């Protein structure tokens, strides 16, 4: 049985020290993928892989070796969610409507990864257009949780989470609009980070809900996630919402003291009906942080309960517009029908799955004449109140918040059929997308052998504090998190 991928740090050092070659690293990843059954018939982690392509990228990385300044992800294989534009593998967004589509241009984050010596390794499965929390909504079939094959890996970045959890790659790119990186990280027992809105360029990320979309990083460890984020972060003139502010070395956050840091415990994230064992694990983690010199403070984010309604108005509204470009004219699926209108309707109703159709209709409705004020405008106002909740706590001296990442552990494939029940699995994560603040999930223990994630949330552009706390907690919990 082949070994799980080493951590990014070790791979980088070994690659630069010429103790292992990019091509052998790729061979290990390929062997590992075969060993865990990453293929469609089993875990179904990837929408597209191409060993020849991976080896070409490895050769490119090898060619960089010997340069004075060692690239920051030199020799690290990185899997990429299938909604991020790559020019050699598909960008199909888990949808029929983009089946086999290969982008003629490359996303900024992928260019940055390659420039840093990373080796793009496969496009990972996802809920169609990132709409879902279980990766069951993929046109290419559900991805299975590597830790419990009858369960979901979470979603929508389920393929990326599974690729890391299965030990194929130490780092994978995901995207989230309401928690699609953090929730699968929690379900798969790995680390998932969503940076501040504007910290990472969205150019080349196929849009779901532009004002909520973020590219995030999944890593086997806090350090893997920190290194991945450091490489893809930074200003991009191709994204008008990208922010021009200096990117700290997140992977050095462990050097900063936890002592004296104020960790907020927002009561709205620990409701009466929260699973007692998840609550216990969170409180245990908070105790560890206290033990390390952090001050634990009870705080309140009063508008939290409104996050799901707000999210499920704004996200579908933006999605209904963002997905209008899939019309069978310039790329992707086209099914002829009666005239132009017939072609549009045949193409779109056959190309989109049930959940995408549902959200396009919902979004079209809340934007349509007569309903805009009651739904969209109202939601954008309440969104402001939710964002204010965060700025108020952080202004009060709280450095980071700590909460459960998800209300449950990974559920069984097919267990949740009611759309709204599925939406509720984002209840603790959507708030950070609505406010644009950085947040990350890391494993804090297990319930019935299934991973539980704990979430740190920080103020805008304060990823460093978040990583400092995460490094410390990861170190304190050690291997407990896996039992």
């Amino acid at each position, binding site marked *: 049985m082949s070994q799980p991928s080493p951590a990014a740090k070790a791979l980088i050092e070994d690659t630069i020290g010429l103790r292992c070659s990019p091509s052998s690293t790729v061979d290990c990843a390929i062997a590992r993928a075969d060993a865990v059954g990453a293929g469609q018939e089993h875990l179904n982690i990837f929408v597209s892989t191409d060993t020849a392509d991976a080896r070409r990228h490895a050769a490119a990385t090898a060619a960089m070796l010997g340069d004075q300044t060692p690239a920051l992800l030199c020799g690290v294989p990185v899997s990429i969610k299938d*909604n*991020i*534009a790559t020019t050699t593998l598909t*960008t199909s*967004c888990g949808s029929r409507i*983009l089946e086999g*589509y290969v*982008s*003629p*241009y490359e*996303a900024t984050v992928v260019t940055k990864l390659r420039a840093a010596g990373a080796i793009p390794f496969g496009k990972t499965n996802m809920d169609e257009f990132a709409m879902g929390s279980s990766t069951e909504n993929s046109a290419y079939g559900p991805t299975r949780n590597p830790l419990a094959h009858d369960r979901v890996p979470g979603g929508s970045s389920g393929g990326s989470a599974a690729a890391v959890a299965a030990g194929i790659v130490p780092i994978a790119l995901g995207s989230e609009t309401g928690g699609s990186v953090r929730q699968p990280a929690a379900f798969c027992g790995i680390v998932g980070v969503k940076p501040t809105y504007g910290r990472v360029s*969205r*150019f*080349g*990320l*196929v*849009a779901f*809900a*532009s*004002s909520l979309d973020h590219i995030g990083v999944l890593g086997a460890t806090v350090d893997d996630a920190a290194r991945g984020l450091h490489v893809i972060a930074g200003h991009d*003139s*191709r*994204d*008008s*919402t990208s922010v021009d502010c200096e990117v700290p070395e997140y992977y050095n956050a462990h050097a900063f003291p936890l002592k004296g840091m104020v960790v907020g415990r927002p009561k709205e994230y620990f409701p009466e009906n929260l699973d007692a064992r998840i609550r216990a694990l969170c409180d245990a983690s908070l105790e560890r942080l206290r033990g390390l010199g952090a001050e634990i403070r009870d705080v309140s984010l009063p508008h939290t309960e409104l996050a799901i309604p707000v999210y499920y108005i704004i996200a579908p*509204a*933006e999605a*209904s*517009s963002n*997905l*209008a*470009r*899939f*019309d069978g*004219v*310039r*790329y992707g699926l086209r099914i002829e029908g009666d005239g*132009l209108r017939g072609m*549009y309707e045949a193409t779109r109703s056959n190309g989109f799955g049930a959940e995408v159709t549902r959200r396009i209709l919902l979004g*079209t409705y809340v*934007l*349509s*004449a007569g309903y*805009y004020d009651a739904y*969209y405008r109202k939601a954008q106002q309440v969104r402001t109140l939710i964002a204010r909740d965060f700025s108020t706590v952080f202004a009060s001296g709280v450095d980071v918040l700590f909460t459960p990442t998800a209300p449950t552990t990974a559920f069984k494939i097919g267990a949740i059929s009611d759309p709204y029940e599925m939406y509720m699995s984002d209840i603790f994560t959507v708030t950070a997308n609505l406010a644009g603040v950085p947040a990350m999930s890391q494993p804090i223990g297990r319930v019935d052998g299934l991973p539980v994630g704990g979430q740190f949330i920080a103020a805008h552009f304060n990823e460093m504090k978040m990583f400092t706390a995460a490094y410390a907690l990861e170190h304190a919990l050690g291997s407990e998190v896996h039992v």
Partner: protein
Amino acid sequence: MTTARMLDDWEMVVGLEVHVQLKTRTKIFCACATNFGAAPNVNTCPVCLALPGALPVLNAHAVELAARAALAINCTVNPTSVFARKNYFYPDSPKGYQISQFDKPLATGGFIDIGHRADGSPIRICVTRVHMEEDAGKSIHDRFAEVSAIDLNRSGTPLIEIVSEPDIRSAEEAGAYLRVLKQILEYIEVSDVNMEEGSLRVDANVSARRRGETTLGTKAEVKNLNSFSGVERALEVEFSRQVALLSAGGRVEQQTMLWDERANEVRPSRTKEGSHDYRYFPEPDLPALILSTDWINKQRDDLPELPAQRRARFASEYGLGAYDIDVLTAGPRLAEYFEAVARAHGDPKVAANWVMGEVLGQLKATGQGLDSFNVRPADLAQLLDLVRDGVVSHTAGKQIFNHMLATGGLPSEIAVREGLIKVDDDAQLAAWLDEVLAELPAEAKRFRKGETKLQGVLIGATMKKSKGRADPKKLAQLLGKLAE
């Protein structure tokens, strides 16, 4: 009662929506070229093809041109404006939405003065708003059988939409509004404003009401207008249609009418009203556009002299008549040309006459523009000096001008080379005069007998013989002696 009488009882109420293409090198949200005539879909990129994952970035120069235009028609440029998505499906709109501006446009509250009413009161048309948006691509329906062809080269060309209040009361006023607007936009050089080439497009909202009424009637939108005269005719036709309906007790339907230039009629488009629901919402890919007061003021200060100001100045500074001013200020280039000549020569009236006569005549005849015109203002001014100072006769001046047109040479050199310097030496003049008298014995005889009205004939003939060089005053004196 006659249609004419019927129309008298009714008032036309019109508001115009004018789309103007801005003269930028690249598109409004991507770096593709805006030039015409490229092969289909060649000027496209991930952004204007709406490829999955591509994002818009605003062209700074488009904002400058849009603000300049808004300020030139007296609008307030808003410190904060917001781009919005106008959602609709059409193959030449690749994203499935047009990036435009909706409830927070770039500029609001302007006006354009288009002339005076019979009673002398000024006709002022208010401008509701000026907003920025992107142009669509082109759908070509007659290129192939069975299918329509889409060319996205134009998709993403920067536009401003100028929306007027329903202040226009006649087809003539509509025409005047458009001509004044076009002239202003030409002066500030934001657009080619060419309706034939589609860089200026007009839609009209037309309604009719009984004279004296103050409330607005139901309006119809008239589209497919492709010339100023077409606009005027379409308005008359649509107005009569509505008046006929209303005075027969019917009611006007709120709908889109299409103008048919050839048939000289309007036809309802197939669009079901209410089937439009554009679901506008703020464009999440573009934060609010924030313009500082300093920046806005600078754009205002940098505006060139506008047509109205220039007309006033030409009246006060050069004492020209209304007609001359209208002709000379029609376009910025001609006005600048005239001023250069007038300043260098010193006599604006003479300069005006030559520019309106010789120069304009030549331009009209050849259809060329001033940029490619052979006669530089300074040279024309020198020619006018030569005529004024009597170095060459007026007739010779015209001949010299024709040489300048051909060769672009200096008038003084041409005058010498062509021997057109005025001759006032009596001997030479007498010699020419004798020849003429010999050639026209009858006239000579009658003149000597005192038929002085023949002087003109004789002087003319002598001027001819001298190739325009003879000094007519002196000839007159010499003839005068003969008559005694």
